[in-house]
């Protein structure tokens, strides 16, 4: 079946730095606007599944108390066990807007030790365009909007020794992952 996806993205990002005696500050933010048109007629052409099935041994018509045949033999006689077909709309618009911002300070504590502290915020907003709420399940047709997405990245670098020093780096972070648009296109 044919399918096509048209995606438009607008990405705006800005970062600026401040240098001090022992501090290196970085601030930044970005916004990503994504507009999607998705045409996906999944199973709109139907699907046949050939499985073990009981058939009339003379006509090979499906029959409850008939002779059991294998999937390959069922295919040979075109006696499919299941047929599945989807109906409804083939189009979806899983648009999303993503925003993030961060602030980070790298502190040169000594000539051998540096520490990086920061905070990061992420927000992902979805469009409800084309989504329909089924009255039998009121939670359908709605999108998530989680605004409490703060993460604290921390990093440490230490240089041990004079000649050809051993460099030790350690880091920890909490990152919020984006939710794929697949979840709002169904």
């Amino acid at each position, binding site marked *: 079946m044919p399918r096509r996806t048209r995606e438009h993205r607008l990405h705006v990002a800005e970062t600026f730095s401040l240098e001090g005696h022992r501090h290196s500050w970085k601030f930044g933010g970005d916004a990503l606007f994504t507009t999607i048109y998705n045409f996906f007629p999944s199973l709109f052409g139907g699907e046949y599944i050939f499985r073990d099935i009981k058939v009339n041994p003379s006509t090979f018509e499906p029959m409850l108390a008939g002779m059991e045949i294998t999937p390959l033999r069922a295919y040979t006689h075109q006696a499919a066990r299941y047929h*599945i077909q989807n109906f409804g709309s083939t189009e979806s618009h899983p648009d999303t807007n993503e925003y993030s911002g961060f602030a980070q300070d790298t502190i040169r504590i000594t000539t051998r030790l540096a520490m990086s502290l920061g905070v990061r915020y992420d927000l992902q907003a979805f469009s409800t365009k084309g989504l329909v709420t089924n009255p039998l399940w009121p939670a359908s047709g709605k999108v998530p909007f989680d605004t409490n997405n703060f993460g604290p990245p921390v990093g440490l670098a230490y240089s041990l020794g004079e000649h050809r020093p051993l460099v030790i780096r350690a880091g920890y972070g909490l990152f919020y*992952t984006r*939710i794929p648009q697949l979840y709002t296109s169904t």
Partner: protein
Amino acid sequence: MDNSKFYPRQVFPTYPNPAVSCALTATTCTPSANLAGFLTSDVSAFAPNFRSPKVQQASLNLEREIVDRFAAGVSYLYVHGVDLIRARDVNLPAPVNEVYPVYDDSGTNFLGTYDNVASFSTWQFTPSITCPFVPCINPLVRPIPRLGAINQFESAASSVYHGLTGVGAPSDAQRILGPDYASTDMRLTRRIYAGDHVKLEFMAESFNLLNRDNKRVNSNDDGFLSSAAQFVQIDKLTGLNHFPAHFRQPTHLLSATGAYAPRQVQLALRLIF
């Protein structure tokens, strides 16, 4: 539609035609009236307490220059995913314990064992208008019978990854242990300065340097076909007992049937100016 059931068989389309022919570029496809009794509306929805998936990541890296322009390092990476998305059908009936005999691949040889499973297939043994020839699955057993599956996206999955110098393995709470996997990778680079503004960089990389035979187990389940065991809705007379369905178990379950990539070597030359 199940062609082995009486009523679906009355409207079952002829292979290879679909039940309803819709244009390839149609924006909607509408079922015909005679299919109304066999349609279910599947619903997808986010759980009310859905949260953004998040990942905790920690790393430790040691690096030292051994000789001029040759550094060696070792790194460890820990990734812990929480509130990861899991889809769960919340319109399933309460499971009912059923016993089915287990047969081999061919379905003719009884393996001498029975599986007691919590099944969603609530069998109906009394004939009715929707079930003229028993046994069959009662279609009205879902909590909301007018809907099919309600796929609810929940913040309910997690994962843990440990990686050491590029070697790692993901795991979770419901894992299947297969053959172990190990791969040694190596990369050598040499940069040559050919003037103030021109550099040549040679690079040699090898994946699975020791050419280890990493065996691969394939396992899948798409709802109809499963490599673990097939649930076949064909009745069996096992001894004196009649069962409306049975399992077929592959002979070599979880045996390796493939392998990951052998040693791979790639060479690169980069001119930087």
